[in-house]
């Protein structure tokens, strides 16, 4: 497999209704990485995944999966991909075992009960293998969807909002499983609303809004580049206003005047903290405690999406 697992070239999608879901999307996913695609509802995340998987036809552009064109070489392209959809779309009357065997067959793989057994065990589904899907809880159904997506041993796994409506235990299980898949070399592309998850898990982050890819960055460099740091000083007593002589600094009073918040750029050469502390001392502003905070991916995301509007 080449270094590029997935190459999305100039994908454009306009639905029959006239709604343009994707505009000239270019995206390259590296083999073996976890890529998080973030975006508000209706941004085009699911449409993009559906096009890559062959569920929706693109209006123009092309997708290469492991170097294979998703249209002209759809068999080679599709058998490399597994999809866990957002909705619990399952045939309710089947048993868990029958449905994973079905999925494996559908993707053209010879039966391998030993593999499917280990897969179900890894997802804590083995003791439910003979249960009908309709009898399972929502969380269990989601596990079944993951088992189905992995039944044919794909190289690339799409997880469309995998943790929506899932309890904490399953979320943790799921992330452990995803780390395990990554360790085995599976490329993982996920969409999520839980930005902290992307922050925890992803190697790279892509942000999509109104059908356009707004940025694609290595997570750490994104945090560094866009991340603002704050120095927070807790005051011994509330203040109404700051001394005028400090007006040139990026300072604000928050928490009812109990906190003095200083914004600085972690990338610039000098943070200005020493100067700040000296000048505070000069004007007689005392403080009880100080700590720094870095803006989260969520803040970055909100400011990016907000900036686009």
């Amino acid at each position: 497999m080449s270094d590029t697992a997935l190459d999305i070239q100039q994908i454009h999608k306009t639905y029959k209704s006239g709604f343009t879901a994707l505009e000239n999307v270019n995206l390259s996913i590296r083999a073996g990485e976890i890529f998080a695609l973030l975006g508000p509802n209706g941004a085009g995340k699911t449409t993009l995944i559906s096009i890559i998987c062959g569920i929706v036809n693109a209006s123009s552009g092309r997708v290469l999966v492991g170097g294979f064109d998703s249209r002209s070489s759809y068999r080679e392209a599709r058998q490399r991909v597994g999809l866990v959809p957002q909705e619990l779309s399952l045939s309710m009357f089947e048993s868990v075992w029958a449905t994973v065997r079905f999925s494996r067959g559908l993707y053209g793989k010879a039966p391998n009960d030993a593999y499917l057994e280990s897969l179900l065990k890894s997802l804590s589904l083995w003791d439910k293998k003979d249960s009908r899907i309709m009898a399972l809880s929502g969380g269990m159904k989601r596990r079944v969807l993951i088992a189905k997506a992995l039944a044919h041993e794909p190289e690339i796994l799409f997880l469309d909002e995998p943790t929506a409506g899932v309890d904490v235990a399953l979320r943790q299980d799921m992330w452990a499983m995803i780390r395990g898949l990554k360790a085995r070399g599976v490329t993982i592309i996920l969409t999520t609303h839980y930005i902290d998850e992307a922050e925890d898990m992803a190697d790279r982050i892509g942000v999509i809004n109104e059908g356009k890819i707004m940025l694609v960055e290595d997570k750490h460099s994104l945090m560094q580049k866009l991340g603002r740091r704050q120095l927070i000083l807790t005051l011994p007593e509330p203040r109404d206003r700051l001394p005028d002589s400090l007006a040139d600094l990026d300072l604000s009073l928050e928490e009812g005047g109990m906190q003095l918040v200083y914004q600085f750029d972690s990338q610039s050469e000098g943070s200005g903290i020493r100067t700040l502390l000296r000048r505070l001392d000069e004007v007689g502003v005392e403080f009880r405690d100080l700590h720094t905070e870095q803006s989260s991916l969520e803040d970055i995301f909100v400011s990016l999406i907000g900036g686009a509007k």
Partner: protein
Amino acid sequence: MNFYAIRAIYLFEMARTVRTLMQSIASPVLSTSLYFIVFGSAIGSKMVEIDGISYGAYIVPGLIMLSLLSESISNASFGIHMPRFTGAIYEILAAPISAFETVLAFVGAAATKSLVLGLIILATARLFVDYSIAHPLLMLLFLVLTSVTFSLLGFIIGVWADGFEKLQIIPLMIITPLTFLGGTFYSISMLPPFWQTVTLFNPVVYLVSGFRWAFYEQSDVSIWVSFGMITLFLVVCMCTVAWIFKTGYRLKD
């Protein structure tokens, strides 16, 4: 050719039949048996022969056709409509499987079920009426062709329908009337000339007539015309299915 995929869909569909044995086999066998009892044994014994065939035996091919048509349509339409309804169709659309393979698996399973059902009804009929089959292979060929053609029609309906009630409408409102008016219970030569002409526009006439010829070498229209009509209908259904996959009609946006 993705044989594993064809097998997976085929076995999935056949497993559905086994799960719903009462509905898919027992119920049509029961309802057809009632026809045989009422029209074949009870009323049939008081009826005159048609074309030299006892009335009970005369209606056997038509009644088998009636079940075959409605069951082929309902099996195939339900088979493709259900995953569309639950959303599970995503997996089939995303799988490395061609349109031809998909149809082969779905329609193959529906046609298999209809064929088995047709043979069960044929055997059941024997309990109530005496009949003979002059051309068993030809009879079988008609069964296969009809099962496949109407399973294809069912597949089309299953894709077209946007709700379960629409799945019922076509068999109930179109196929049942066409079958009842298609010479199942009578020879169309018994109708006034005007209605004979009208009847010739009913495609089911050709199916029942051809099928009956395989039993008794008696038919309302030539066996070749019957063959031509069913082949034509098969081709029309295949072209429609090909169009559905080419355009993604109701399957893909």
